């Protein structure tokens, strides 16, 4: 395996992308029609990429497991989408967004990629507005903004607490336009179960038709994975229950390096787990921290109703510990601070695993109506789930698994280590370092899809114009399909006693307990053993009912959970390897006297990219050294 080459263009940070676009190879319109591209996933990244590529004239095939592309989980993103418009005249700029993301990611992201993401952010807003996203507006009719965690300007565009829904539906509408024009062919209720390489290049995928169970072959000149993150490895998370890491994992097994797998974001504000039956956790948007003040009682086990606890008996611990950012500290910091208070015995609610988010002061100052206009749907959502009215008493919240910064390693072109295989959106690792800032995911996904990939993929496609359409009867497709079939048959023939859900819950608990917000060497080693044992149990005692040649939701789950066992092993290895704390990765052994994350830049200023070397063999670590040319690597402080 060659040394990782990020292919970062020459020139100063502000010039790189412009230079790149000016010099990238192009494909003429007549040739584009002869070139096929597969896109897997239809979220903000996949839908935008597929529609932008379709507009250019490529022949695009898009796949999603849902019944409609509109249902991808970008739909559930709530708070907003960042852009450097500086409409608020508060000093924002491309450089500031870039710097906030680099710092927010605790100096573990690649400068050039992050700068580019900030650079295209304004175009994303323009495009979404033109597509009809009803972003919040002032009475004069212009777009308005709010603030988000980890920043001191207001650059977040929003549509109430449903910004993701609106951006998702807009990118879905642009996808629909291309479907109607025939440039894009949509394959829904399909799950990618393998990647097909021909002569070392990504040339196709094997999918399972989730209605008939049939295995299908699809070929293309390039494959784009926009398959999202793997946060459901924790079982309970804010993700959709079917979100999974399998597409990325299959690509990894075929040679794509997996970067920083242990960087998983635990979001500070979700509705706490209420019972053991729970199938998912619901997020309460970070935007609420603009007006919600977070506190716990100053006394342990204070059982008074929160409204009866007077001001002097409340500990607004974020405002106390981080006066400069207060309730708007980044997510990793906010989550750990909540865990610290609860572990110390100050937590509230029936389990003691919750803190208050209180809107009393904001309502007093701004009135019910203003608060309703900003967060109405979120308050209603909270009320529906908990039966508590947040206009009258504080919400109870607790951290939960949310987003994975880690993902497939990509270079500046967003290409993985497999030629012709691209990864965009949450599926790649590139832009968020060790912690993602709020409202930066919709921004990155849409930027990757609409404004970055269409340029970078042309550099590769220009060399494919002499390659005729790839036939699907090649032996590589035969082999891949056969392997998929064998694995499915193996899963269904175990005929044990426990369901996939049973194993998934147990795996999630191990990961949450030992590889969640706080990690240490002993715990991680224990987790590695526990995962290994549970994996063995899974492969000997799993029960999958029904047949393969029919709609069978249990075989779908079994496949995803089986991949999570392998990904969990790698996630733990990565967490063990990184003996420092950075961003969301908090190693207890590595903290400052006041409990903040302690980085070790001398030894760990790199991206850990892992290579699969075969079953039962350890992964090989490759390091991409991070070079910071424009920013000074500093201690990340929000005090």
């Amino acid at each position, binding site marked *: 395996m060659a040394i990782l080459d990020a292919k970062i263009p020459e020139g100063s940070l502000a010039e790189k992308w412009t230079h790149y676009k000016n010099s990238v190879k192009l494909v003429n319109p007549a040739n584009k029609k002869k070139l096929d591209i597969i896109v897997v996933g239809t979220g903000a990244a996949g839908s935008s990429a597929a529609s932008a590529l379709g507009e250019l004239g490529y022949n695009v095939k898009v796949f999603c497991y849902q*019944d409609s592309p*509109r249902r991808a989980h970008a739909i559930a993103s709530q708070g907003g989408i960042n852009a450097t418009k500086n409409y608020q005249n508060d000093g924002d700029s491309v450089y500031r967004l870039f710097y906030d993301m680099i710092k927010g990611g605790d100096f573990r992201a690649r400068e050039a990629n992050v700068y580019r993401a900030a650079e295209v952010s304004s175009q994303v807003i323009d495009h979404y507005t033109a597509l*009809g996203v009803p972003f919040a507006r002032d009475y004069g*009719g212009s777009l308005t903004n709010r603030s988000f965690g980890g920043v001191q300007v207001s650059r977040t565009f929003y549509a109430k607490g449903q910004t993701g829904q609106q951006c998702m539906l807009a990118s879905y*509408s642009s996808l629909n*336009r291309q479907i109607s024009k025939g440039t894009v062919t949509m394959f829904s209720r399909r799950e990618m179960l393998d990647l097909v390489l021909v002569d070392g290049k990504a040339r196709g995928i094997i999918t399972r038709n989730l209605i008939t169970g049939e295995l299908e072959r699809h070929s293309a000149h390039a494959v784009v994975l926009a398959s999202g993150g793997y946060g459901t490895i924790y079982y309970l998370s804010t993700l*959709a229950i079917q979100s999974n890491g399998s597409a990325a994992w299959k690509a990894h097994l075929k040679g794509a390096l997996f970067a920083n797998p242990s960087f998983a974001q635990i979001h500070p504000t979700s509705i706490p787990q209420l019972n053991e*039956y729970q199938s998912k956790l*619901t997020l309460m948007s970070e935007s609420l921290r603009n007006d919600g003040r977070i506190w716990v009682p100053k006394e342990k086990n204070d059982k008074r109703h929160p409204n009866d606890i007077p001001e002097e008996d409340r500990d607004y611990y974020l405002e106390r510990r981080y006066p400069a950012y207060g309730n708007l500290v980044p997510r990793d910091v906010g989550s750990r601070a909540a865990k610290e208070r609860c572990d110390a015995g100050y937590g509230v609610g029936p389990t003691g695993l919750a803190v208050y988010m209180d809107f009393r002061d904001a309502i007093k100052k701004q009135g019910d109506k203003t608060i309703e206009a900003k967060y109405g749907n979120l308050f209603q959502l909270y009320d529906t789930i908990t039966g508590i009215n947040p206009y009258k008493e504080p919400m109870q919240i607790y951290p939960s698994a949310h987003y994975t910064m880690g993902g497939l390693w990509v270079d500046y072109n967003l290409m993985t280590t497999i030629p012709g295989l691209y990864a965009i959106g949450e599926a790649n690792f590139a832009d968020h370092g060790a912690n993602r800032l709020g409202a930066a995911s919709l921004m990155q996904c849409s930027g990757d899809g609409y404004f970055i990939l269409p340029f970078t993929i042309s550099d590769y496609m220009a060399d494919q114009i002499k390659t005729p359409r790839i036939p699907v009867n090649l032996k590589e497709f035969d082999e891949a399909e056969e392997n998929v079939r064998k694995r499915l048959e193996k899963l269904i023939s175990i005929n044990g006693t426990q369901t996939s859900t049973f194993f998934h819950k147990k795996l999630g608990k191990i990961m949450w307990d030992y590889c969640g917000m706080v990690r240490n060497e002993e715990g991680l080693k224990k987790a590695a053993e526990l995962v290994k044992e549970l994996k063995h149990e899974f492969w000997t005692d799993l029960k999958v009912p029904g047949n393969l040649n029919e709609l069978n939701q249990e075989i779908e789950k079994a496949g995803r959970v089986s991949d999570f066992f392998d990904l969990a092993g790698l996630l733990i290895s990565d967490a063990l390897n990184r003996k420092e704390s950075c961003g969301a990765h908090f190693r207890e052994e590595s903290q400052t006297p006041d409990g903040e994350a302690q980085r070790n830049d001398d030894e760990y200023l790199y991206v850990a990219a892992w290579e699969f070397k075969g079953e039962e063999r350890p992964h090989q670590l490759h390091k991409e050294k991070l070079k910071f040319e424009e920013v000074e690597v500093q201690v990340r402080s929000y005090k």
Partner: protein
Amino acid sequence: MKVRLKIWRQENAKAKGAFVTYDFEEVSTEMSFLEMLDALNQKLIKKGDSPIAFDSDCREGICGSCGLYINGRPNGPEKGISTCQLSMRAFKDGDTIYVEPWRAKPFPVIKDLIVDRSAFDKILHACGFISVNTGSAPDGNSILVPKEYSDLAFDSSVCIGCGACVAACKNASAMLFVSAKVSHLALLPQGRPEARERVKNMVMEMDRLGFGNCTNTGACEAECPKEINLTNIARLNREYFTAKIL
């Protein structure tokens, strides 16, 4: 608590379906309705029976995947929620609960409680969008939109495409769904250039796919999990007639 469930089981699109009765005793009021079905499925699998197939994904009322006909109403007895947001608190110990898939000709059953709603996608392929190519948009603030219209457009845009409106309607009409998209885009200046073509194409496609007519019963509005209102249908009619006449 315990409940008696009468659930529609149908092996595939061609098979003949029927209600099957399940007495389920391990129900907690803390479960959501779908978590109750999850728990029942776990039990069925362990017993060697086939689990009940149903769609769901985000489980927070926004993706629109789920949607069941519960005791004769889309999404059950509560107002303004999707099925995944329905809690077992809404039921009493000893209740009998009928669970069916959406019933509408344009939404054929695939298996058990899963239906094919691809007709909704097809309607949107017929100009349910604004034609703008990537890269050609003007600055966001160069299009000023009165807040009043922007807010109205937002109210129409929140449709989750679940199909409850069609399932609720005795005519299996998709007017609320179509009108929400037509309204969302017609209320914004960005959407005006194509407004006439859009409304004509979408209505034509809706008719072609076999959705029925609107007879102003209002069941769609009453059952919409996002509480999209009938004004949208009035606006659709106005847009449609204007487009036809002018």
